């Protein structure tokens, strides 16, 4: 075991990942269960040469981030579900202007005020675009405190690499829990040079830089669209990430993210002891989504059925269905209200499915 491990909250670790990536601006508004981010930033970002503002609202925050990013800084905001809804207009602008930035959603239970328990009800919002117009956020879904730090760090790099906003989509459990973190994979870094396009005070002798998202003439806008589409297509080819656990011989493949993916791990351990062949494919980028990886399993001989557990009423499962199509039976196990999964919540349906891959209790159909 590395001696470099520190014991931290997920929300704090996310900040440390940001500092190491050279984040110089954090603007945000308090909301449970991500207050620790705002608080930790308010205390420590100054030590890293950055600036913190507790904005008057989530809307102000996302727009301040727009300004900071346009000015060339690595910038981040975070919130939880209702606050993220308020950022949708801003995100749409940021995406169209191709401004790199990171936004973290520590999802709580909605709709409405809901409660502050962990949930996954914002998957569609994150991956299909909650704002207007066609755009996508590079979306990473950590399931541990280590990954909170790592994926915030990675999100900054991806955002700059692609000039695209990146989202870290996690749930209250991951944000609130403490675990060991090892930062050796996150060396302190200088943000890349953006003098090619950033807005700054060094305009003497160069062409001015303009950032906009309006093209009144549809023909011009179409060009802008096609540029974005080409970027997204490339991104889909190059940046898909997922992890696998005991999938090579799996007869039942679980596809899960966030804290349910951890419980799946426990469940698999239990089931494997019983000799049941269960594996986990965990999308790390939920956009771009690992369709082909899942499709390969759906095509494989050993996989008999696929199961998706979600802390919602079925969102990611639509993406899984788009990969699996009718190739294998697809099952769904939901958890409502902010309740969390226990390993038994999964082991029982899995045993049933392995007995009958078409077990109607959990079979999921498009309707």
């Amino acid at each position: 075991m590395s001696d470099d491990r520190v014991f931290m909250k997920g929300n704090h670790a996310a900040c440390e990942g940001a500092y190491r990536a050279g984040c110089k601006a954090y603007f945000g508004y308090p909301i449970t269960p991500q207050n620790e981010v705002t608080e930790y930033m308010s205390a420590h970002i100054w030590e890293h040469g950055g600036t913190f503002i507790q904005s008057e609202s989530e809307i102000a925050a996302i727009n301040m981030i727009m300004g900071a990013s346009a000015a060339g800084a690595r910038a981040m905001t975070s919130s939880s579900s209702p606050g993220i809804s308020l950022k949708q207009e801003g995100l749409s602008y940021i995406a169209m202007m191709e401004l790199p930035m990171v936004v973290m959603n520590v999802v709580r239970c909605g709709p409405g005020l809901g409660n502050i328990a962990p949930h996954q009800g914002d998957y569609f919002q994150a991956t299909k675009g909650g704002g207007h117009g066609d755009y996508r956020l590079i979306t990473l879904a950590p399931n541990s405190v280590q990954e909170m730090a790592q994926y915030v760090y990675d999100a900054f790099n991806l955002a700059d690499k692609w000039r695209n906003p990146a989202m870290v989509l996690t749930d209250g459990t991951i944000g609130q829990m403490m675990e060991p973190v090892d930062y050796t994979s996150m060396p302190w870094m200088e943000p890349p040079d953006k003098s090619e396009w950033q807005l700054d005070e060094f305009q003497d002798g160069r062409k001015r830089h303009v950032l906009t998202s309006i093209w009144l003439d549809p023909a011009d806008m179409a060009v802008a669209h096609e540029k974005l589409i080409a970027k997204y297509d490339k991104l889909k080819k190059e940046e898909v990430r997922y992890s696998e656990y005991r999938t090579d011989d799996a007869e039942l493949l679980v596809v899960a993210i966030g804290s349910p993916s951890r419980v799946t791990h426990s469940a698999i351990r239990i089931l494997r002891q019983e000799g049941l062949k269960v594996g986990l494919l965990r999308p790390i980028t939920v956009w771009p989504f690992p369709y082909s990886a899942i499709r390969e399993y759906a095509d494989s001989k050993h996989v008999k059925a696929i199961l998706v557990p979600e802390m919602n009423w079925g969102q990611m499962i639509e993406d899984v269905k788009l990969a699996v199509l009718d190739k294998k039976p697809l099952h769904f196990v939901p958890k409502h209200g902010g309740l969390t999964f226990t390993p038994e919540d999964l082991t029982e349906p899995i045993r049933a499915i392995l007995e009958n891959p078409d077990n109607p209790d959990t079979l999921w159909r498009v309707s």
Partner: protein
Amino acid sequence: MDTVTLEGTEYNVLAKRPESLTDKPFTYCPGCNHGTTHKIIAEVIDELDIQHRCIGIASVGCSVFSYEFFDFDFISVPHGRALAVATGAKRMRPNAVLMTYQGDGDLAAIGTAETIHACNRGERVTCIFVNNAIYGMTGGQMAPTTLLGMKTTTSPLGRDATRIGWPIKMSEMLSPLPGAAYIARVSMHDAKHILKAKAAIKKAFRAQLEDKGFSMVEVLSNCNVNWHMTPEDAVKFVKEKMTENFPLGVYKDVWEEEKAAKQPKKEEG
């Protein structure tokens, strides 16, 4: 001073297009004071020699394309959020000169919160607030600053206070906030007032350059097209009605306050 030779005679050029404007002709309606305002802002920026340090924030409104006319770095941002964007950029680039250019719908309706809090934080940015008492770009709807009785496409019988409230006075509202360094209301209705406006805009930029705090100049402007007036009548309306409802003047002047604070209190008598 520039000189030019016309038919053999050499002339000094007393008035011409400022450097801080691009060559692109304004696309505003004939007689619209957005143009006038652009011009004097650009002159001020020329005179302060800060063109290449300026970052402009274009808001959503008729001036959405202001980035095509001002010749420095620019970003076009969501409706109402110019001052939040300016805040983020200024905090990252304290040596840049930040200007937002906003209409009344933008600044005083959807952007109310962003306006008040940027001012309250004393952000070192300069806000040019063009108050034409109407939503120009979207075709003449009521603005928060629309005068009582004024007919617009969404107050077809004239603005009626009991249903939809009173014209809101942003300079008065912002100036008591301690973050405000310089707040003035000016008008575009004649040359004299345009020159006064220019002086105010210069002071507003100086407030930023001298790190004094938030500065805003509220520019009373016409929207002759949506007011359904000739430019001449519209300008007259600004002179007579707009200034009556929105009194001109300096609402906050940090230098005056500093002076007053330094001066020993005068004895009575």
